[in-house]
């Protein structure tokens, strides 16, 4: 006997596990490809998913097979003008053209294996193995965060919380309960009426019976479809949720010596940082500070897109950061991080002053302070700021500095700065 089965509801996506295994297996190649992609993208779509290219030879599964050479004959179709004994010049490509069975003159083309990663997969790879160093995860803020969780149903609430299915279930139950007795009566009355009509009893009696039926029908219709009693609302209660609180300060030098290229690189770095933080941590506050000869706090839009230029006083940004920490982020309650980007051009006493300021005021407060220097292309001289900061690099465990020359270096440096289990040691 033949069976016909609707298998559509069984759900697809059986291959999800295999797809994931494929990604895991070729992580290296995919990561390489992702890295290349990041350097090419504009800042605004740095976080899109994307195509990944893997060289076909990397994922080939080898088997024993014939190579070119030796002797063989191949049968083709559609002969028009050949006769036995004719000769044909070998196709281009070193005779390998007909190498694969019946490919008929086409060389074996090895295309790269191209496929698309979703945004999630893309970013996962992107920020894999990265963590804010020294994050004290179990630290509870003074005012614990509250989280709303579902907790059954209740009888009153606001309309947007109406639980429709639940309400209708209630209504159905009530209607069944209220109407079944009436239904039975109605049934009986109708039967009686029919009987009476068939037996042609007196008109009066029939009309009485008919009235009775009508009355019962009305009664049945009076059972309301929906009653206030039926209404059910989803109930939510707030439960305290412990969170570790952190704040990241982004300090960027936008002085005149930071030309477009350098600003672009710095913004790229912060774009990564921003993405990393917003993706990995729900509760990280971000503070954007840009400085010329004086510093100002701005929002992320202005930080990334507003052109501004002027002189350079690095220390102004550090002072502003200190001030903001004092006002809003009490160090006992917050994990404080900072990343500073500059071309390192600072004048007079500014570098030394900044270094001292950093050492005395900021580093004791901060869990981690990263300095990224963006020098001119092909410039390997030590900048004044770099020279000053270098003193901190070895001495302070929570300070790190790196140089970035071009787009391609941003991602590696970024990874390097935030890789998991770093020298600063996780808590």
């Amino acid at each position, binding site marked *: 006997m033949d069976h016909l089965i609707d298998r559509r509801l069984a759900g697809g996506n059986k291959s999800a596990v295999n797809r994931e295994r*494929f990604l895991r297996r070729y992580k290296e190649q995919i990561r390489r490809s992702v890295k290349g992609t990041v350097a090419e993208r504009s800042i605004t779509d740095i976080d899109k998913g994307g195509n990944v290219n893997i060289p076909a030879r990397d994922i080939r599964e080898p088997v024993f097979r014939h190579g070119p050479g030796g002797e063989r004959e191949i049968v083709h179709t*559609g*002969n028009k003008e050949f006769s036995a004994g004719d000769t044909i010049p070998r196709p281009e490509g070193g005779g390998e053209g007909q190498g694969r069975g019946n490919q008929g003159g086409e060389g074996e083309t090895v295309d790269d294996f191209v496929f698309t990663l979703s945004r999630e997969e893309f970013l996962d790879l992107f920020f894999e193995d990265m963590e804010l160093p020294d994050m004290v995860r179990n630290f509870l803020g003074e005012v614990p965060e509250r989280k709303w969780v579902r907790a059954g149903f209740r009888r009153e609430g606001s309309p947007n919380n109406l639980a429709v299915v639940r309400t209708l279930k209630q209504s159905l139950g009530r209607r069944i309960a209220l109407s079944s007795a009436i239904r039975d009566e109605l049934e009986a009355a109708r039967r009686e009426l029919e009987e009476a009509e068939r037996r042609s009893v007196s008109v009066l009696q029939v009309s009485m019976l008919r009235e009775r039926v009508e009355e019962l029908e009305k009664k049945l219709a009076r059972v309301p479809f929906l009653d206030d009693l039926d209404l059910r609302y989803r109930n939510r209660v707030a439960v305290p949720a412990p969170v570790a609180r952190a704040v990241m300060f982004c300090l960027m030098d936008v002085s005149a010596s930071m030309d477009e290229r350098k600003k672009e690189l710095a913004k790229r770095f912060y774009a990564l940082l921003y993405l990393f933080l917003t993706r990995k941590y729900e509760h990280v506050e971000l503070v954007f500070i840009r400085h010329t000869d004086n510093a100002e706090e701005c929002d992320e839009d202005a930080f990334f897109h507003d052109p501004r230029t002027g002189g350079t006083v690095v220390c102004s940004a550090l002072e502003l950061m200190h001030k903001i920490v004092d006002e809003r982020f009490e160090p006992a309650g917050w994990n404080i991080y900072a990343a500073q980007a500059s071309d390192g051009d600072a004048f007079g006493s500014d570098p030394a002053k900044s270094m001292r300021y950093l050492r005395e005021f900021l580093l004791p407060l901060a869990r981690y302070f990263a300095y990224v220097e963006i020098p001119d292309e092909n410039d390997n001289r030590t900048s004044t700021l770099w020279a000053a900061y270098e003193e901190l690099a070895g001495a302070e465990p929570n300070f790190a500095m790196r140089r970035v020359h071009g787009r391609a270096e941003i991602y590696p440096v970024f990874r390097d700065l935030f890789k998991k289990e770093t020298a600063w040691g996780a808590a």
Partner: protein
Amino acid sequence: MGSGVNGGATLRAAEPISRGPEWTFELIRRYDEAIGECAREFGLDTFPNQIEVITSEQMLDAYASTGLPITYPHWTHGKEFIRNEALYRKGYQGLAYEIVINSDPCIAYLMEENTITMQALVIAHACYGHNSFFKGNYLFRQWTYADAILDYLVFARNYVLKCEERFGVGAVEEVLDSCHALAPHGVDKYKRPGAKSLKDEERRQAGREENARRLFNDLWRTLPRAEAKEPRAAGRHPFPAESEENILYFVEKYSPKLEPWQKEIVRIVRKIAQYFYPQSQTKVMNEGWACFWHYTLTNRLYDKGLIDDAFMLEFLQSHTNVIAQRGFDQQGYGGLNPYALGFAMYQDLKRICEAPTTEDRQWFPEIAGGDWRQVLDFAMRNFKDESFIAQYLSPKLIRDFRFFAIADYEDEPELIVDSIHDEAGYQRIRTLLSRQYNREYVVPDIQVANFERDGDRSLTLRHQAARNRPLREDEAEETLKHLARLWGFDVRLESVGEDGSVSKTIECPG
């Protein structure tokens, strides 16, 4: 059109089963019944059918697991899935209308986006064409256990999952990778004798003694004894005594290093490769058979008036697409279309039976003018592609397809046209085309030649380079590395040319 049974004098039904393209489960059931009845009229012997309607996503899943309904997880399935999904989403590639699984009951997948015409076509093609082929063809009968395959797949999947849990995904993946590399060489082409039970063994032993007793003659004692031969040094016996073509089998049985669970995984890959072996050997026959029957059965439905003209036109359009064969110089030529060749050969056989020409009588005296149903049934049961073509490719088909053979000889500066579709070429073309479907034409002949059992435990493979066709060297090395991983000791591969000399050796330390 029109291929009635015995004159086809059936009354046309007043009303076709359906009009318009929409399908419902009820309609599918009715078509299945109608087609099944036609199939019985023609005497097709089939497994019961299990028809499953699936979505395109599920079809992609099925693609990824080479059509099997259940497989163990492995990245190569993910790769296939990603590749097919990308092609499908971008519209480069449509999906197959159906997938059919050689099992009992025979499972056929129908895609939900097909029209009712396509569903009926697929039912005729898969549920009656392929199905009867699976049940009848000798290779399938010999090598696949239709009633057990699903259970085995479930076992295989669970076993692999369990191993992953115990030994880690990575360790299992390594073994699977290596097995996959050798899977084409994990296939038996001939049955090996079954293991003997203790009882059999005792009986044989008793038989030997009885024989010795009956032949006993005391006279033999009086003969002078021959000088005792030098006892052969132990371990000088080459092992295996005869070369073993099933490399995975040899690894499973004799690998000095593999753990029992690893051997079981080798066995699983081997079993699945064996399951696919008949399919690879009967592509032309199997697809041709299915096409022949979907064509014949649909025409029969039309003769009975169960389908209307719109149905028939849509059907013919799909059918002609499926059996289209392009010429070598046309765009999109990808070699011989097995559907086209197979369909043409069965149709041709039918023609030879029904309306033989003088040429046919000369070439096929034993079947010309015979009962086509018996002839086709015999052909379906007893051949594989290679022998089927060697036996039944007629000169008419060679002319129709305008076959020609190109000789590619390493020593010749140019390619040579070996033979074409003329009187002088028919035999030659037939032989060459048949040889093209020989397994060795695609899969190199590589066998286990020696296992240094009492020495360094190294394993030697011998590649018999038929017609001096070499192996693709970089890939051969990679594959050999996989073997070395399974074997655990040194492995080497010797290529032996036509003249018997070792032309090339690749070694890989274990």
